[in-house]
């Protein structure tokens, strides 16, 4: 520990102070954080090798259960509110896909955040010079959920080739767009739910409600639900936009109105959840007191 040695440069803080460089600088910073977290998560796949095998087994069991369920139902009927068996298979694929993306980063990060609020480690997130919502949303990556994403993609491709409707380029673009919107809507919703942990510390299983709704109700086209329930599943707990609307796009039954409202709703949900996030932070730090 001799001081004479030339060591690292400890005098300078960040060369560009975070917060400077305007909006473009902020976005660049955010993207860099996002990239670092995601790439590290995937690089650390090896840490979870046994979990990875397990999640393959689990995905196969879940898929088999759902296909078996479909076959039982379609042994008694030929269509479910206008959806044929392969249409529903596409929907199951989309459900897997969205669920996989949520399980990859959104849910584990939100669980970690709620745990952090309970244990006090969330403070470390707040003292970092970056967007707190971004940090909280990407802090944990669970790469084994990629299995669900891949299974979902496979099932979607298989289902789409069996569905009679032919997909145009426009349909594909619309499908991708609605998928993205669906993800944004669901992410915003989960964020808002988790944010409530600032008020109710023992809230870790509020996500369970969503998970259960998403897992059970999300596997079916929202059109089979009676009126009030359909409204709940579309706007209050937006499972419909996450799964049904992209599936409609993929099976060639999407109306332009639905596509536009999906985009509008995604923006609305995102803005609202972000507002709520900062509102909760102000309360957490006692700014409103």
């Amino acid at each position, binding site marked *: 520990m001799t001081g004479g040695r030339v060591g*690292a440069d400890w005098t300078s803080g960040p060369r560009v102070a975070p917060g400077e460089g305007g909006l473009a600088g902020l976005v660049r910073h955010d993207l860099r954080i996002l990239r670092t977290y995601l790439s590290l998560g995937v690089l650390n796949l090896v840490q979870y090798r046994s979990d990875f095998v397990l999640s393959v087994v689990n995905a196969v069991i879940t898929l088999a259960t759902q296909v078996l369920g479909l076959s039982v139902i379609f042994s008694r009927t030929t269509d479910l509110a206008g959806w044929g068996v392969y249409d529903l298979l596409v929907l199951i694929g989309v459900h897997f896909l969205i669920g996989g993306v949520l399980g990859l980063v959104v849910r584990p990060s939100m669980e970690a955040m709620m745990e952090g609020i309970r244990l006090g480690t969330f403070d470390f997130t707040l003292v*970092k*010079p970056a967007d707190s919502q971004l940090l909280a949303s990407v802090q944990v990556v669970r790469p084994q959920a990629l299995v669900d994403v891949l299974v979902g993609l496979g099932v979607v491709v298989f289902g789409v080739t069996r569905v009679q409707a032919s997909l145009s380029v426009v349909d594909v673009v619309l499908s991708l767009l609605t998928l993205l919107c669906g993800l944004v809507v669901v992410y915003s919703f989960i964020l808002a739910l988790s944010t409530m942990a600032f008020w109710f510390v023992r809230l870790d299983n509020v996500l369970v409600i969503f998970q259960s709704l998403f897992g059970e109700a999300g596997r079916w086209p929202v059109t089979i639900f009676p009126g009030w329930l359909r409204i709940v599943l579309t706007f209050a707990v937006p499972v419909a936009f996450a799964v049904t609307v992209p599936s409609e796009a993929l099976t060639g039954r999407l109306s332009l109105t639905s596509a536009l409202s999906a985009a509008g709703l995604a923006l609305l949900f995102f803005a609202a959840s972000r507002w709520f996030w900062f509102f909760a932070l102000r309360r957490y730090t006692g700014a409103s007191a």
Partner: protein
Amino acid sequence: MSAITVDRLHKTYLVPEREGGLRAAVGALVRRRRREVHAVTDVGFTIEPGEVVGFLGPNGAGKTTTLKMLSGLLHPTSGTASVLGHVPWERDRRYLGQMALIMGQRNQLQWDIPVLDSYRLNQAVFRIPDADFKARVAELSELLALEELLRKPVRNLSLGERMKCEIAGSLLHAPQVLFLDEPTIGLDVAMQRRIRSFVAEYNRRTGACVMLTSHYMADVEALCRRVIVIHHGRLLFDGALEELVHRFAGDKTINVELADEHPLDPATLGALVDGRAVERSATGFSVRVPKAETPRVAARLLAGLPVSDLVIEEPPIESVIEQVFEATSVEVDGG
């Protein structure tokens, strides 16, 4: 300009109250009682750049609340503070980028990934240029002997190793202000010493200003010339460590070594020390005496016994602090 300026800081919490048991649990369904807790009351101080200040007080004195306000995690109920020219709770990223908060009981490194990967996340968050990042990791791992640890997942590290990695990770962005909340808690003595000397070295190399809370007085004695003491949320003392001892220690200890196997008669000894409790050792004894009477008692002992050595000591810092808190809690509770 001072690094930290705090003026009339005040924080009040509302906490719900409930008693144990089934009946109380059912009762709480109906009505909730809340109580106001004054965690910090009218605290003010100033800290200069490069200073290392010990922040002392018993559990629940308001130390952590104050540190949380200074690191921008909590808004005060009233009062002002300025750290490096920023109001901490505005949470300006330029401030957060120059500050570090290290809590001994809490982890921020990710559990499942190697330490170095957690550092890379910090690099992205704090926008640390690659060259600086490499140089600082190298230097910190030399100072703290981290070389072997950086590639292991955090879950495989021991408590002490984890703390070293935590500290290094929190310093990669070369913070100008450090808040250390019990950084050595639960660590063994060697590891405590290592972390202590590291903090001193970091302070020396970077001129960063450090605020430290610790239950281990050895930490405070080794690192802090100045201490700030709070109790029941109020500032009790702000000044040099020796001054604290001088002001609050009412007693001194006289250690006496006797020349030969002198048959020490309890009655004689009792008379010499005015009947005070005496702690016998193999070759002598020690006795605690009020400061003012120390010269008189020492003179009497020297005259009355075959003394080979006599030392007058200040009491250990722990017992002084203990006295401070005891005295003031009586005062506060009584009033």
